[in-house]
């Protein structure tokens, strides 16, 4: 069999790449079973101690729960807020409008997470815009919003929005406009057409967008750091703490594996739930 030299050239980087991808996974999986004796001191025998600790520790458990809730809230919010925008981008005939909105979305997509997180401090911080506005309106809520789960959810929603928008555009475009006309001709008002026709047909798009947002938010690191201020930690922050300070790789790896499985579980459940809801 003649081996095409060109093909080999092509395959080489690919093989390296695959090794590079597989290495971390194998690594984490393996290391999670090591025994941690101290900084940089890992040894056999293999143990399940790390996993046991992960499940038993109250802190870790509650962080996982909190992470799940925050991720769920922000993903759902992001999808809900982004839906009209995606709808607009799919159906509007106004080229200028679409270009404008698209630029805003792509800009947000590429913009630095730190920068976007920082901007919310200006709104939610003790001397921030929200505080000033609520003061002005006589509501006393403003000043203690930062460093709470609320602020992290807001920040994550903000980050997830462009992802949700872009994911939903293509599925929404697959809904043929003539179907809505048909519904209206059968007597359905615009609201009824939206509820009975457009929404059910949007479910695939919504499910996909939700999955994308959940992947993002469950692994969040920067936003909880900035807007949670050490009080509201998500799993990524916890892992960072454990590893960077004490170099406890085994525990960190075990927690990472747990996070991975947790993410997959949450995504699967949400997909099932949205499909169920869509049928209702």
């Amino acid at each position, binding site marked *: 069999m003649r081996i095409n030299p*060109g093909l080999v050239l092509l395959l080489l980087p690919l093989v390296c790449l695959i090794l590079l*991808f597989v290495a*971390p996974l194998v690594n*984490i999986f393996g290391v999670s079973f090591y025994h941690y004796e101290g900084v940089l001191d890992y040894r056999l025998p293999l143990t399940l101690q790390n996993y046991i600790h992960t499940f038993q520790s109250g802190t870790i458990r509650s962080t996982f729960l909190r992470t799940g809730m925050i991720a769920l809230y922000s993903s759902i919010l992001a999808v809900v807020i982004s839906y009209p925008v995606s709808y607009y981008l799919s159906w509007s005939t106004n080229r200028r409008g679409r270009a404008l909105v698209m630029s805003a979305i792509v800009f947000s997509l590429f913009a630095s997470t730190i*920068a976007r997180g920082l*901007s*919310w401090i200006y709104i939610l911080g003790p001397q921030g815009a929200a505080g000033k506005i609520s003061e002005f309106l006589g509501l006393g809520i403003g000043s203690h919003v930062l460093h709470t789960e609320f602020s992290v959810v807001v920040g994550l929603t903000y980050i997830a929005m462009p992802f949700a928008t872009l994911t939903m555009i293509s599925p929404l475009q697959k809904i043929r406009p003539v179907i809505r006309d048909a519904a209206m001709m059968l007597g359905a008002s615009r609201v009824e057409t939206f509820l009975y026709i457009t929404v059910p047909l949007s479910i695939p798009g919504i499910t996909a967008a939700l999955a994308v947002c959940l992947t993002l938010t469950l692994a969040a690191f920067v936003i909880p750091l900035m807007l949670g201020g050490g009080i509201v930690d998500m799993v990524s922050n916890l892992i960072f703490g454990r590893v960077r300070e004490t170099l406890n790789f085994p525990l960190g790896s075990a927690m*990472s594996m747990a996070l991975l499985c947790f993410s997959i579980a949450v995504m699967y459940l949400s997909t099932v739930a949205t499909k169920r809801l869509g049928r209702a």
Partner: protein
Amino acid sequence: MGEPVYGISVALGIVFLLVPALLIIVTSFDTNGIIGRLPTSANFSLRWYYSFIEDTKFTDGFVTSLIVASSCGALTTTTGLCASYIITRYAFRGKNLLTELLMSPTVFPGVAIGLSFMYMFIGLGLRQAVLNLIIAHVVISFPLGLRPLIAAFETFDITIEKAAVMLGASRLRAFREVTLPDIIPGFIAAYLFAFAISFDDVAVAVFLTDVHTTTFPVAMLAAFRRSVDPRVNVGCVFLFVMTVVIVFIIEKSIGLEKLVRSVYAR
């Protein structure tokens, strides 16, 4: 479509996206600035800008990030080229599996990747932070960088290339002179995606930086945590400028809508 409600919700969505950015830009000029406080007086100056540029922590970090991001972009684009060529041109068993595998890093939390690479590099005795960062960043940016390349290859009409080959060009030459120019926009998109992801990354970088080497976002984060340093604000403005440049390049080379459609149409 319940016109007013619809229009308002779209407008609100866009405002929600853009207003915070505006706030940062405005406050970066506030002379008496403290993070989190809107300007109380109309005292604007470039005070924090000068301070920012003078601080080597930030400038070194910026340079490092630039090096890492551009290398990462180049590497991702090149390997992405190989991968997408193979994926779109050849059919073989396990092709879907391969594609899934190449897209898999998205499922992994950034910290997991950072952590495992840190462990690997320490174990292997590789202490070159910049190199380590580049490698790790290629892993996280590959999935997203691959998409525009695959889209570019898929939309390219292969019969044109075949025609060139039939007219006598070698396969390599046909590829270089016929196919390549057509997929350049896909390249640009892939490069910029990889660049942006690498530059913005914190979750991975935070494990692979050390006392001597740090990336821009990591430096900013450190400054942020240490004190209410308004220079972080300035850093953000620079980041926004960079984003605008990137978006501008994309618009000019492919056009935003086309890009998005090609990447997200699945």
